[in-house]
């Protein structure tokens, strides 16, 4: 009995490649994740119940007062409204333009590489550069668009999209689309290149028109690519900050104040770091909720397709 070999316990890790000792290698990555992500997020929750002003560490706890305040004065509702409008415009336009151009550039045409490069070109610039250039494109009276309008005999002086309360948000959303559609297009191109040519051929033999091929073969086959692009654009749209900051500074009035811009303003202009933290916590949940809902909805659509 004494010499009987030890029985291996049920479920014991006997892998020669990934044995239990390999788990130790998780520790550095886990530690970095905890220190650089989890801890700051927990601190955000902590500051959200204080009156910390970003300078003086002698702050007090104020309970949920910061949360009540952001709901009280309407800033949250205004910024959520602006953010959602911005996200809807950027998601729809980025995907339509990105998909359209990807389909066009997936056909056999001359200079395909050059056109693909040109379409991706805006994505290479930083938001600061793009925002700065577009303020001159939109400049009233003497901007590029105003001059073009005047050249065609239209009233260029009346063109002032950034100075108009109704159009400013859409004007900056278009800039975001101009910069982002290239990245969206690249992902669509990758998706379209996975569509098996034999399926398209079979469709053609069955008498499908190009539109039917697109609608009934290509789109269902790239549905997971559509999901990725929509979700990425939704997240980018909900985190909108750059162009509100660079091009309009939230104005005119409050018309282009997005969630992120509002947080920045409360934290660094009003110096209410505690309230900005509360705003961030609420925004965090709003973005998570919308993203989860979108993911659920898109996955369901994928299955239906």
């Amino acid at each position: 009995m004494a010499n009987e070999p030890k029985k291996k316990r049920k479920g014991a890790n006997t892998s020669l490649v990934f044995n239990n000792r390999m788990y130790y290698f998780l520790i550095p990555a886990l530690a970095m994740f905890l220190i650089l992500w989890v801890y700051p997020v927990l601190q955000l929750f902590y500051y959200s119940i204080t009156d910390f002003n970003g300078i003086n560490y002698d702050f007090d706890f104020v309970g949920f007062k910061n949360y009540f305040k952001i709901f009280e004065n309407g800033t949250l509702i205004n910024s959520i409204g602006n953010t959602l409008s911005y996200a809807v415009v950027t998601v729809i336009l980025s995907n339509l333009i990105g998909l359209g151009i990807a389909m066009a550039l997936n056909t056999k045409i001359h200079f395909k590489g050059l056109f693909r490069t040109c379409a991706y070109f805006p994505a290479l610039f930083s938001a600061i550069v793009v925002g700065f250039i577009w303020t001159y494109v939109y400049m009233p009276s003497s901007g590029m668009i105003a001059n073009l309008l005047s050249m065609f005999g239209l009233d260029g002086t009346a063109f002032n999209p950034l100075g108009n309360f109704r159009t400013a948000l859409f004007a900056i959303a278009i800039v975001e689309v101009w910069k982002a559609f290239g990245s969206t297009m690249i992902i669509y191109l990758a998706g379209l290149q996975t569509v098996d040519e034999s399926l398209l051929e079979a469709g053609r033999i069955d008498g499908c028109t190009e539109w039917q091929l697109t609608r009934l073969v290509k789109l269902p086959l790239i549905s997971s690519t559509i999901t990725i692009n929509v979700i990425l654009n939704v997240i980018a749209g909900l985190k909108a900050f750059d162009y509100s900051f660079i091009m309009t500074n939230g104005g005119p009035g409050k018309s282009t104040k997005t969630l992120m811009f509002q947080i920045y303003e409360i934290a660094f202009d009003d110096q209410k770091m505690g309230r900005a933290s509360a705003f961030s916590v609420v925004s965090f949940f709003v973005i998570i909720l919308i993203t989860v809902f979108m993911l659920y909805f898109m996955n369901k659509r994928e299955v239906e397709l």
Partner: protein
Amino acid sequence: MKAKKVVSLLCASAMAVSMLAGCGGGGGSEASGTSEAKESAAGAEDSAGSGAAPAASGEAYNHEAIENAGDITITMMVSGVASDNDFETEQLPALVKEKWPNVTLEVTKLPDDNYYTSLKTKLASGECPDIILAQPMYAGSNACYALADAGYLAPLNDLDALGNMKDLAAVTYDNNVVVCTAGVSILGTYYNKAIFDECGITAEPATWDEFLDACQKIKDKGYQPIVMGDKDMYVLQFGLYQIACNEIYAKNAEYDDQLRTGDTKFTDEGTWDTVLSMYNELYEKGYIDASQTLGLGASQAITEFVDGKAAMTFDGSFNATALLAEGSAGAFERGYFPIPSASGDTCTATCLSAGYSIYSGSQYIDECKELLDYWFDGSSDVWKAYLATGKIIATYGEGADSSPNYELFAPFVELLNQGKAYHWCNQAWPAGTESTMEELFSEMVGGQGTTVEDITSGMQDKFEDLLDE
């Protein structure tokens, strides 16, 4: 299973340790940095507090501190964008080295937003540079009152250079001068003399009515009277604060202090309602065209002015170089005047400009004071180089009256010397009040149905909210 348990236990321990280390580290550094700073400030406060007048306080700092220090490195952080042969990052360290070969001055210059973020981080971690740039009163994220309240600034009452300086109330906190500043900043109206001449305006307007008449004459000649970059809403402050000096502070210099005690309110009749109505009149009469300016940025408005497309613009002395530059309209002559008051007894929005503070946790406080005294003595090589930058309007010292553009600013300095100068409103308000004013005013001139009463009550609500801690 056992191994898994050990690994999960290890992971959990790592998580707990890292979190505790994070908490402990933050707390520790906070404790060390902040308490060190506070102790130092408290100590310095004790020594300065006994003197009757700050500048004449009993104990003087060690005026031989640098000479006795051996080789030292003093660090300094300022905001701005470094230019060729930049004063702070190139000339100043070289001149300091020339004067004291044992001192190395390391200067970091960061764009404004980076500066604010970096300053907060460094203060929180107790790693703040020895000398920092601070703003008067409550202005901005580096407001000296907020920094002094947190105990981060060393009192400078024993600086010899303070004797030269003008009224330092805006940089004095709890009877301690906490910022060393030699210059003033001005808000005024730049104008195109060629257009004024063409429109038959022979003298600068002396009353509000004359100002409106001048605007009408310019408009009748087909020129845009005033251009503003209202897309960058902060420029609204440039005109409003000038009017506020005339219509509010000239009548009650304590108005802003009383706002904090509740004795005055933004909603009081004859105060901000008057200021906002007067400024709005310029938009209503088309002297400032909101349909254009709301889409025009600050730098674009400056370009319009130097290109001769508008006769006037409200701006500060800090933008003089850009506003005096040659545009497509050539090198036309430019003038600068304060917006006149309704009564004709005009005041100016001229305030102390940003200056230099010493971090209370610095180990070289006396050395920094000796350096600042040399810099601001009114005659040293550093002083002359500082003035030659043209970025400050000095109120004392050699070369103060021959600095670039001094002629343009001289009438404002004269008003300052007559006691007819007041601080910029936002310097006395908790940061953020002015943003509400700008937002609501933009809505009003942008036709969103906002009224003057909405603006004043919005400002009052925001003011009370920001003070409510």
